[in-house]
């Protein structure tokens, strides 16, 4: 469903991704690992169409050329990225924001706007599922949220929007084990044979709950080694240097 060939990405005048290839099929879970600054976040931003990135090469999603689409058009197609540091937007109510986003998706797909009671029911279920305090719905997006609340709020948005490609940028950082479990449960709940997940992480603990089909090691803007879950375990046991020998 996602096909990347010889992609290079420039961010803040620096070439961060250089000649990267990646194929992700529906139903798969991919984990991307690597040292800080190797380009993991940039890769996700490029796929999501961040204004910060300038991309060259081939980037296709569901057989569509993504480079011609802006980030909202990509989101409508089903691309979702959770932000490592979610943006705080004062004054914009979280519930209202979610409803607007869902209606944009439905509009693009030729569907009627969502009906409020159904939307609220769905929202409440997901909130309970993730163990989020109801108050955040009344608050402005991410404003005054704790680190954990922000991450859960990203997953909540993902569960509501039901994307086809879920890209999660260090969703596990700063979470305690209970929060990590509920985040993992959220991911597992909505993924199916038609959707794919890309996880960017430093640790294996998330991968214990969301089992990756493929693990990639990113270095100097390229994928230099791919393997299955055992690669991630090797990394944890031996460290990058030994694995890359």
């Amino acid at each position, binding site marked *: 469903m996602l096909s990347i060939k010889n992609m290079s990405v420039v961010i803040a005048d620096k070439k961060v991704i250089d000649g990267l290839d990646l194929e992700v099929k529906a139903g798969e879970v991919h984990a991307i690992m690597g040292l800080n600054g190797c380009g993991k976040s940039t890769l996700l931003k490029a796929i*999501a*169409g*961040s*204004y*910060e990135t300038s991309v060259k090469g081939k980037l296709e999603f569901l057989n569509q050329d993504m480079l011609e689409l*802006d*980030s*909202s058009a990509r*989101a*409508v197609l089903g691309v*979702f*990225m959770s*932000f490592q540091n*979610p*943006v705080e*937007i*004062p*004054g*914009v*109510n979280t*519930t*209202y*924001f979610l*409803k*607007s*986003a869902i209606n*944009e*998706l439905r509009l*693009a797909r030729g569907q009627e706007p969502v009906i409020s009671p159904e939307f609220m029911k769905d929202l409440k279920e997901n909130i309970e599922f993730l163990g989020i305090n109801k108050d955040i719905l009344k608050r*402005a*997006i991410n404003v005054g949220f704790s680190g954990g609340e922000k991450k859960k709020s990203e997953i909540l*948005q993902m569960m509501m*929007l039901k994307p086809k490609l879920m890209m999660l940028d260090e969703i596990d950082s700063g979470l305690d084990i209970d929060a990590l479990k509920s985040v993992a449960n959220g991911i597992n709940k909505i993924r199916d044979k038609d959707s794919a997940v890309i996880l960017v992480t430093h640790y294996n603990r998330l991968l214990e709950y969301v089992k990756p089909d493929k693990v990639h090691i990113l270095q100097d803007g390229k994928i230099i080694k791919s393997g299955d879950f055992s690669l991630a375990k090797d990394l944890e046991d031996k460290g990058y240097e030994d694995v890359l020998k």
Partner: protein
Amino acid sequence: MYSNKQVSYYIYFEDFKVIKLNLPKSVSYESSGCLVFQENIDLNIYIRYTPTNASMDKLEIVLKKDVDVNIYMEYTGARFSYIINLSKFDLYKNAKLNISQVYKLDSSAVYSSSSYVNLQEKASLKMFKLFFSGLQVQSSSKVALAYDSDINIKALLLSKLSQKYIFSCEVLHNEDKSRSRVYSKQVLKDDSTCVFDARTTVQKDTKHCEAYQASHALVLDEGAHIFAKPHLEIYTDELKASHGSTVGELDVDAIAYLNSRGISEKNAKGILVNAFINELLDLDYEEAKKSLLRLLGQTDEE
């Protein structure tokens, strides 16, 4: 603005003459332009001005002791006219006035209004001003505060094309424990100009006054011009005073975040402008807020 159900009391002016009037007995209106409130009025009073010719007139609103009134004022029409309006608000001890003034003028109108506000002991005035139509609108208020009185002025200036809006407000803290809040937001489009001109003076030998001023501008187009003068004059040390002022464009990261959730660029900007305005529209009466939002073409969900 209000449906008939909500507004049973009104006074309509055309060319500053009363053309329609329905006021409770306790309210007297003199032809010299003086409206005197003797008792509390539970319902909103609706005042509408529709000048058609270049003209000048005045209105005086007096609230007697302990009287509590809500007023909604609308300035409409004034096609190709230059209008000067003088108004005076006199609040006796403990009186409470909640007033919204909306400039819903013809796009060719030039309007200049000067208000003199006098608050006696423990009186309180809440004022909301909305500028969004008329070629050039200037509103100046001069406020004098007595012991423990309180004024809260909020102004929302939404300018476009070559409109020029000037909001100026001068507050004088004459006695102890008086409080003032002057808060304005401006959203500028096209080649429009907005001026925020506030001066708050805390007089000598007063104690425990509180003065606050803030102005925030959102500039959406190249040609727009914002001029802010948040001035404070302090002649005593027993007080709390501060002001803040910002000018900026929409936050690109916030737009990008909304985009990444599938919201188009145009809608994302709309949402953010709405959020910017909404904070100020946090009015006491829900109805006024809803009508205002409808007026502005904004959705009023949540």
